[in-house]
């Protein structure tokens, strides 16, 4: 396996959402932990980690940069939102949408982030209108390729067409590794069973997922089996989970400048239960990917009902796994 590359490790502070929500970790704690676990890049959901957004003081930004220096981290990505339904009864006009994107570009720029995550639901037309501002603030806007979307999905292809046609360096793609969910996440299955799903049916759904049977057939089958509401909800969740073709990373590499390294359940320091990072990272190396892989832990919501969530330990394992797969220290 090729190991020479320029791929860097980072952490999305989203990973510590449980501790942040419960006020067990402050923003500084999150940055410090990320650094301690070996990450050098920081991704942040500002609307989660920065109360007061978008009205943040100069003092806040100064503090942010002090922390970055203190913990030896580089700000990488601001995950933005676009509240098109802010007003009851009407959607934002296109002009208002552009204003909202500009607001976030300015913020990303003040944070020192070179990348800004755009929600996958954002239209290609709007993105094209925003490109000049992304260039002005020198922040790359990346559409998050989030399951069940994938590179070849026609909505994403329309975004890629915009990137190709404009030739800009400030619009591209941010794959979320959730698109490589090869097995049904164990933590999701177990949570559904605790909530009332039928164990045998849940097992069938997991097997059907691995067999790659068309999700609508699985849903039908679960109904035929007399599945309860949660069984059917679990079957319907197959419409939203995908194992997509990691080879496509090679083809679209020119448009990829950041990656959400989503994960649900680190079994140990080498294994994510459902996402085979060992089948994905080699393509990133082969394709010459040069950005960050930012750990994005999303398992807390599936286990918080029965156990204390330890996001730090989960991120530690994930960083350890990525470090190994990237051939660090060899």
């Amino acid at each position: 396996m090729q190991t020479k590359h320029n791929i860097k490790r980072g952490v999305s502070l989203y990973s510590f959402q449980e501790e942040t929500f419960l006020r067990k970790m402050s923003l500084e704690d999150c940055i410090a932990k990320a650094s301690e676990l070996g990450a050098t890049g920081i991704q942040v959901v500002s609307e989660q980690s920065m109360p007061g957004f978008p009205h943040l003081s100069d003092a806040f930004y100064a503090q942010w940069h002090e922390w970055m220096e203190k913990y030896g981290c580089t700000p990488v990505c601001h995950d933005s939102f676009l509240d098109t339904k802010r007003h009851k009864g009407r959607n934002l006009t296109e002009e208002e949408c552009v204003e909202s994107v500009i607001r976030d570009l300015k913020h990303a720029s003040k944070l020192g982030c070179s990348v800004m995550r755009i929600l996958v639901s954002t239209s290609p037309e709007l993105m094209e209108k925003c490109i000049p501002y992304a260039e002005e603030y020198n922040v790359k806007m990346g559409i998050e390729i989030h399951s069940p979307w994938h590179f070849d999905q026609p909505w994403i292809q329309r975004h890629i067409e915009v990137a190709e046609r404009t030739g800009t360096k400030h619009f591209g793609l941010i794959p979320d590794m959730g698109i490589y969910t090869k097995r049904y996440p164990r933590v999701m299955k177990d949570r559904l069973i605790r909530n009332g799903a039928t164990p045998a049916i849940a097992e069938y759904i997991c097997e059907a997922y691995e067999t790659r049977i068309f999700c609508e057939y699985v849903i039908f089958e679960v109904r035929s089996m007399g599945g309860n509401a949660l069984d059917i909800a679990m079957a319907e969740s197959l419409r939203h989970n995908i194992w997509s073709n990691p080879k496509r990373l090679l083809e679209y590499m020119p448009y990829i400048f950041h990656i959400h390294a989503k994960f649900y359940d680190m079994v140990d320091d080498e294994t994510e239960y459902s996402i085979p990072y060992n089948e994905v990272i080699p393509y990133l190396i082969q394709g010459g990917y040069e950005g960050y892989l930012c750990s994005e832990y999303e398992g807390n919501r599936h286990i918080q009902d029965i156990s204390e969530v330890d996001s730090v330990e989960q991120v530690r394992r994930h960083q350890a796994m990525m470090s190994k797969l990237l051939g660090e220290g060899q």
Partner: protein
Amino acid sequence: MFDKYMIMETGFCNVFQEQEVIGFQLQARLPYYRGLGLSMVEDIRITVDGNAVPREAIRFTTLGKTYSLEEMETEMVGRWEFGEVATLTINQPGGLSSGQHEIELVEQLRISYLPFPSITKDKKTLAL
């Protein structure tokens, strides 16, 4: 995501004004993974021991400001921040009797990227 954390187990009490009980309070959080502008908090529904509280009787207080649910609908600056504990004050002369009460809280949010409203529920038995 944070459903079970919506109703706080602390801060449940009757509210006094000039020695009269004018209502009761509970402390609540958003179940969502980020803060949200108040105009997108479409509804807050509270049930006490199976009886629904009228929407008009609810006041929402966060970061020192208080709103009726109707006022929140057009509030474009105030936000309910991530993990932030807000106070729900229910105008109900006489308040609640002392002892245990089953409280159900529903929060309905307008999340722009979802085609449907996000409706989340928590239920806890609290003692007054």
